[in-house]
């Protein structure tokens, strides 16, 4: 450092390299660099250190990063989510939405079907576009139009029966409202008939 100003200049070289100096200060530094070999060498050394840092190998995240993130979010309490997101998450589960739909449908069926018409007796053949329910629901048939046919009549239900229910009614039998059907007298026979052991016995006979 031959020039007494070198010390002050060197203190500013890092910020100069980072482009963080105002124009007037940059001009002062550049004037000095034009005449001082020592400071030019120091500038190059500092630049090299910066280049080395940028050249440090980058790591590539593994697949576990995203998978782990997903697991963390799944276990995250819903209370911390924005309100709208809570709804999205809740109703993004199709089976839950479908189960809720079928619960409403069955409740309507019970309210209207238990007071009039004969009780259901065994599985009915599927109506056009509909399905034959199984287990406790063996006396009823849900159609895509949203009605449930019971022996002797049709009960209007939901406008849109969830497709999951149409295709896999057996998946929703454990839903609490569906289980309530077991307690109704007119379903007892159907339930009995639809039990696997009885179905097998019937088939063997």
């Amino acid at each position, binding site marked *: 450092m031959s020039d007494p100003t070198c010390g002050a200049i060197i*203190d500013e070289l*890092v*910020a100069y390299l*980072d482009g*963080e100096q105002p124009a007037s200060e940059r001009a002062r530094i550049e004037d000095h660099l034009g005449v001082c070999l020592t400071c030019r060498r120091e500038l190059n*050394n*500092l630049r*090299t*250190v*910066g280049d*080395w*840092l*940028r*050249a*440090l*190998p*980058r*790591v*590539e*995240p*593994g697949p*576990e*990063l*995203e998978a*782990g*993130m997903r697991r*963390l*979010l799944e276990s*995250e309490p819903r209370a*911390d*989510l*924005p*309100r*709208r*997101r809570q*709804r*999205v*998450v809740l109703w993004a589960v199709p089976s839950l939405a479908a189960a809720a739909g079928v619960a409403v449908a069955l409740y309507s069926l019970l309210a209207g079907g238990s007071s009039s018409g004969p009780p259901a007796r065994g599985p009915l053949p599927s109506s056009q576009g509909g399905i034959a329910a199984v287990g406790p629901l063996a006396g009823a048939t849900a159609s895509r139009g949203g009605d449930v046919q019971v022996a002797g009549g049709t009960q209007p239900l939901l406008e849109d029966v969830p497709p999951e229910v149409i295709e896999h009614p057996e998946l929703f039998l454990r839903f609490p409202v569906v289980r309530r059907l077991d307690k109704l007298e007119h379903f007892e026979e159907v339930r009995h008939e639809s039990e696997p052991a009885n179905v097998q016995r019937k088939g063997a006979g």
Partner: protein
Amino acid sequence: MLRLKAGDGQAFRELFEKHARAIVNFSYQIVGSRARAEELTQEVFLQLYRAAPRYEPRARFTTWLYRIATNTCLNEVRRPERRFPTRPLEYQREDSTERTEIAFADPDAERGDDVLAGRELEDRIRQVLAELPGQQRAALLMSRVDGMSYGEVAEALECSESAVKSLVFRATATMRKQLAEFL
């Protein structure tokens, strides 16, 4: 971030895909372990997710993200069980062996000595970096490696720009001194 705040779950995924790699690398340079860096990155994004409902766009999103990352990583290195780490050896050589040779050795060199010299330099850089105080290290990485301005680094570190200038200067001066044999 505003989309995430409004309840758009896809927005979180996009943010994660765009920024996770940078945060993994930033964390890696601070804690020296790739596995731990990935865990910390998940922690950073989990904090982001939790904070989304209260997010206000006062600063650039990246700055805010690095603030969370810096605090998370510095808390990690301050933990008592990390007080006496085996610093240079903490960096996992298997993470970077191939790229080390590209970055620090002459690609045209045929002599194994040059490759070894490149590895030696990389180890030394990591060692010096690991010995820097946490704030100096974070400031240096953000400004030099991630290209953030002093103003952005100041927001991320919640300090003044002049403090950042001082942090970066001291960190660079230390590295320049400790690596003099390679210059």
